[in-house]
């Protein structure tokens, strides 16, 4: 069976959940090989982690020459690996950077690219959600090595023992790929909450919070949820841009999305309307968000949310 390369999403060797989802999808298409690009010290831990999700091989690419740069060197590294492994497909977790890596890789390998897949079947047909989530499209790469970026929460990870044979892979990075350089980097503070795009529950706040997110955060913590925000809340400086849900922010598709003080503009819907269950709290019964909801409360979020939070805490004991 041909190999299917899966780029590992990790932080310092700590493998993130979308990697397991991709390995599970990769097993439908061939034999999953995980690709680790990172520091040598984190590779053993990463290999151990992906072993439990069916990785037969783990290619280790030392990032000594790569870190400090964005996109181009990773694309070169993956192109060289693809040249030697001749994979049946290459899967990458959808992120802004990985989509750009995939874009360069597609040109290098003269191969088709599908971005932001939300499902993948045995024959390589990928499902995407387009036009602000109003349409579902199924499509397939027809030329070259299919390169597919897959969104978080696209599959339930299936545990399965793999050989996880560690295979170091040497890459040669051109000087041309090192011309755009990371000059400074400020790591984001960990919030202690689940990752927005991976969370099973997202509780969001908009302009209606008036800048006070404590009621939103309180409910999020009681539910073990991630916190999201509308662009109005981000533009007002109440929340960092990484929390923004919508067309120009994150697309989320959790089991439960709770929109508070958010009107439901099309650009916001684009990022959340594929959520399984949608709940909204809004003062205005005419707010368009109510067209989407499974359950809505017309009321003031500053009184409704704390009371719901208490009820959740009481129920959870």
């Amino acid at each position, binding site marked *: 069976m041909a190999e299917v390369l899966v780029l590992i999403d990790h932080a310092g060797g700590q493998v993130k959940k979308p990697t397991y989802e991709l390995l599970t999808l990769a097993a439908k298409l061939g034999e999953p090989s995980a690709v680790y690009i990172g520091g040598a010290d984190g590779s053993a831990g990463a290999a151990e982690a992906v072993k439990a999700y069916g990785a037969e091989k783990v290619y280790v690419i030392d990032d000594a020459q790569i870190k400090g740069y964005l996109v181009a060197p990773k694309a070169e590294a993956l192109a060289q690996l693809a040249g030697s492994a001749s994979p049946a497909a290459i899967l990458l977790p959808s992120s802004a950077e990985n989509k750009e890596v995939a874009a360069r890789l*597609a040109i290098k390998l003269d191969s088709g690219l599908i971005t932001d897949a939300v499902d993948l079947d045995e024959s390589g047909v990928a499902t995407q959600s387009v036009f602000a989530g109003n349409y579902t499209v199924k499509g397939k790469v027809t030329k070259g090595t299919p390169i597919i970026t897959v969104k978080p929460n696209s599959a339930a990870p299936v545990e399965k023992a793999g050989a996880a044979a560690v295979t170091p892979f040497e890459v040669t990075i051109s000087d041309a790929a090192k011309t*755009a350089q990371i000059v400074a980097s400020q790591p984001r503070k960990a919030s202690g909450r689940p990752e927005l795009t991976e969370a099973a529950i997202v509780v969001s706040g908009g302009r209606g919070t008036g800048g006070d997110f404590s009621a939103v955060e309180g409910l999020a913590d009681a539910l073990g949820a991630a916190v999201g925000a509308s662009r109005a809340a981000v533009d007002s400086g109440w929340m960092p841009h990484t929390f923004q849900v919508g067309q120009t922010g994150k697309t989320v598709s959790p089991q439960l999305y709770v929109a508070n003080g958010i009107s439901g503009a099309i650009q916001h819907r684009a990022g959340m309307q594929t959520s399984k269950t949608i*709940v909204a709290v809004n003062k205005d019964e005419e707010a368009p968000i109510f067209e989407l909801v499974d359950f809505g409360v017309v009321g003031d979020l500053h009184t409704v949310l704390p009371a719901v939070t208490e009820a959740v805490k009481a129920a959870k004991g």
Partner: protein
Amino acid sequence: MNIVVLVKYVPDATADRQFEDDFTVDRVNVDGLLSELDEYAVEQSLQIKEKREGEEITVTALTVGPEAAEAAVRKALQMGADKGVHVVDDAIAGSDAIATSLVLAKAIEKLGPVDLVVGGLASTDAGMSVVPAMLAERLGLPQVTLASVVETQGDQIRIKRDGDVATEVIGGTLPLVLSVTDQSGEARYPSFKGIMAAKKKPLDTWSLGDLGVDASQVGLGAAYTAVEETAARPPRTAGEIVTDEDGSGAKALADFLASKKFI
């Protein structure tokens, strides 16, 4: 200095967007406009020109699209771009990002030595966020993409990029490909003066022949991906809406969450 700003003509997001029978995006029967996200690219291009007063800087707005796409270039000219190029050819219809980036690359090469190619965060229809990276690869240029802040000095550029794990400052040396986000600063409205001036600005129309691109390399037939099926998402069934009175809303919501096993 030559700046090329990439502007895409897209179906209006607030209108009813549709697919054609061949699954390509209907770009003819729907009202279109300059992608809002590319207005930010035009704005940053103009700001670079304005900040570098005294230098000879030309901002060229470039689009690849159907007849109507000229409107996207016109809007960029009204905002303040100096000249426009519209690549239009029946053979281009149905092109994927790979073919679009090829046509854009050939057009940029035809424009002569370019110092800066500026694109938007994503097109508001396909929204792949890949064309600038593909273009950089094709032109053999570095990319500094998804910038929320842009500064240039001489042949140096510095951008801020808000990533998921870190906020980064990226530096590069021109020529290169830049893309900007909607966090980079509100785009200007065309002034009356701008609208009048735009009428006299040069706007070239090029075909594939002018670029030396063969029709077989583009369009639906040359696409690297095939859409097999499109389906409108079933409308969400109307949910239950309650009005909060003295805490009844919170109670009802908590009951709903419990019934769905979220608590």
